[in-house]
């Protein structure tokens, strides 16, 4: 999922602001029959039902099938539950997926917050231009951009040479993030790629919520003798929470399912659950096991998101 997806969210939030009186007013447009909304919704609803809801149910069902690609698949009561043993077998990849997704979400937040703050409060007439620059990386194919990191992090490239010289790689190697003399094909390069790929998904929602904030609130806090740090912690941060929650979800969910960064910037030693699922489908062609893994991935993410959103207690998401 790439693209100005987030750009849309930002635009949306701006638009909503411009006319708070607008919004879902009672049927004023075309036709006033009580059936009109259903007629408008039916084609899209059917599409989503046929190609999103039913497939998801089928995924669950398929994980209980037995058979193989050559001999065909069949369902025998009570289902082939042994596929779910693969979940335990690939626990390391599951763990790595969520760890890497969590780390990259954290890094995204750490990088995006200053940038979003800068654009929202300190950019003046450059605001529109900077926003375009934030989504500009999306304009090139993300696979090509990810491949470019192979050049940047090459073993004899300037970045890694410097890191070796400054012994940064040695320190990171102690944390098992890199090897002692290289960055490519290590956990760090995968996390870095994930962070890079999903950063705009964090910047735009953060910007949208910071931009809605009244800057005088910070001034008020400082008039009341708060230090800049306290003002950030007690005023700006809580007010930007909807953006933080939206941004972390938009980063964490796709990152947990991603296998492109692990494939292009890593090795099998750092593969994530997405790599396993894709291998099970296309290399091993064990569709039922692949379905089981895929289903568990979705379920885990849904559960995590549910508890996260409940804890964050925001309703401004959908």
């Amino acid at each position: 999922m790439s693209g100005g997806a987030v750009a849309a969210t930002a635009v949306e939030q701006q638009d909503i602001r411009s006319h708070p009186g607008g919004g879902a007013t009672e049927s004023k447009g075309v036709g006033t029959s009580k059936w009109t909304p259903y007629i408008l919704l039916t084609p899209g609803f059917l599409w989503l039902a046929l190609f999103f809801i039913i497939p998801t149910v089928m995924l669950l069902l398929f994980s209980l099938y037995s058979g193989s690609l050559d001999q065909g698949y069949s369902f025998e009561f009570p289902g082939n539950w042994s596929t779910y043993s693969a979940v335990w077998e690939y626990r390391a990849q599951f763990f790595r997926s969520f760890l890497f997704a969590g780390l990259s979400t954290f890094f995204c937040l750490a990088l995006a917050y200053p940038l979003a703050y800068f654009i929202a409060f300190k950019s003046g007439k450059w605001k529109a231009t900077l926003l375009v620059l934030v989504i500009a990386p999306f304009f090139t194919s993300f696979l090509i951009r990810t491949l470019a990191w192979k050049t940047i992090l090459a073993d004899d490239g300037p970045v890694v040479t410097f890191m070796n010289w400054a012994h940064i790689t040695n320190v990171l190697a102690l944390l098992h993030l890199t090897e002692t003399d290289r960055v490519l094909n290590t956990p760090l390069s995968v996390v870095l790629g994930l962070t890079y790929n999903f950063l705009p998904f964090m910047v735009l929602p953060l910007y949208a919520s910071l931009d809605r904030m009244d800057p005088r609130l910070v001034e008020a806090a400082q008039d009341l003798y708060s230090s800049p740090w306290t003002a950030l912690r007690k005023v700006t941060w809580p007010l930007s929470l909807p953006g933080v929650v939206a941004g972390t979800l938009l980063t964490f969910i796709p990152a947990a399912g991603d296998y492109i960064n692990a494939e292009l910037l890593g090795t099998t030693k750092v593969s994530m659950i997405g790599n396993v699922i894709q291998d099970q489908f296309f290399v091993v062609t064990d569709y039922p096991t692949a379905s089981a893994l895929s289903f568990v991935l979705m379920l885990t993410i849904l559960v995590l998101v549910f508890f996260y959103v409940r804890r964050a207690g925001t309703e401004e998401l959908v």
Partner: protein
Amino acid sequence: MATTTATAAQQEAPAVRTTKRPSGPFRWVRERIIPIIGLLVLFYMFLPIFVVVMFSFNQPNGRFNYQWVKFSFDAWTNLCSVGGLCESLQLSLVIGLLATLGAVILGTLMAFGIARYRFRGRSGSNLLVFMPMATPEVVMGSSLLTWFVLLAFARGTTTILIAHVMFCLSFVVVTVKARIAGLDPRLEQAAMDLYANERTTFWRVTFPLVLPGIVGASLLAFSLSFDDFIVTNFNSGSTVTFPMFVWGAAQRGTPPQINVVGSLMFIVSLTIVLIAQVVQRRRKKA
């Protein structure tokens, strides 16, 4: 904020000020810390793009284009000399256009339905639209694949198209819905007051006002479809779209022509966005 920072510090702890207040270049950096970090992050975001453009002028030694060898225009002048590249590009453009058309038609209807009416199942519809956006692509792709396998439906251009319309749909609904919700209701009331009937009001007032949202949604849907890899990979059979081509190239050897396409994409989309911005600014002035 820098000045208020200083005054706050003065008022709070004047004793600290004299001892701990930084001076010289350190103070200069401290006062501009947020813009500096912000620009560094932007640099991080742009670094790969510089590399992509630069390496489109490279003449690599081996099959892979990861190391700088020497400057050359070869890749730019012989774009289609790499087998399959231009075909995949063409296919991606066609799929992108068709998927956009499908998603925009279905999505705009849904957006009007959800934004303009209160009905039983409205919040359910919102949730349904939100769900595909909150599902990892690998799950979406694999579940569609199992569905097509169960139906014994051959994978190819049709299945790619079906999948792309599906995941673009939600983004179109969200974008257009926001535009409708942001409309000033008084404009429609004014049209009605001037004896325009519902149909005229819709086509002469409402629709033109929503149109920028639809255009934005189209661009978004096109870029999502054009750049999609994961869902496509699961449902393409042996069909090769441009991202699939790049993926294959990453395994077999990356010709600099790939970077040329990347650079062209960047230039074209940047031009479109800049034109849109200029148009918008003129409209605001008018």
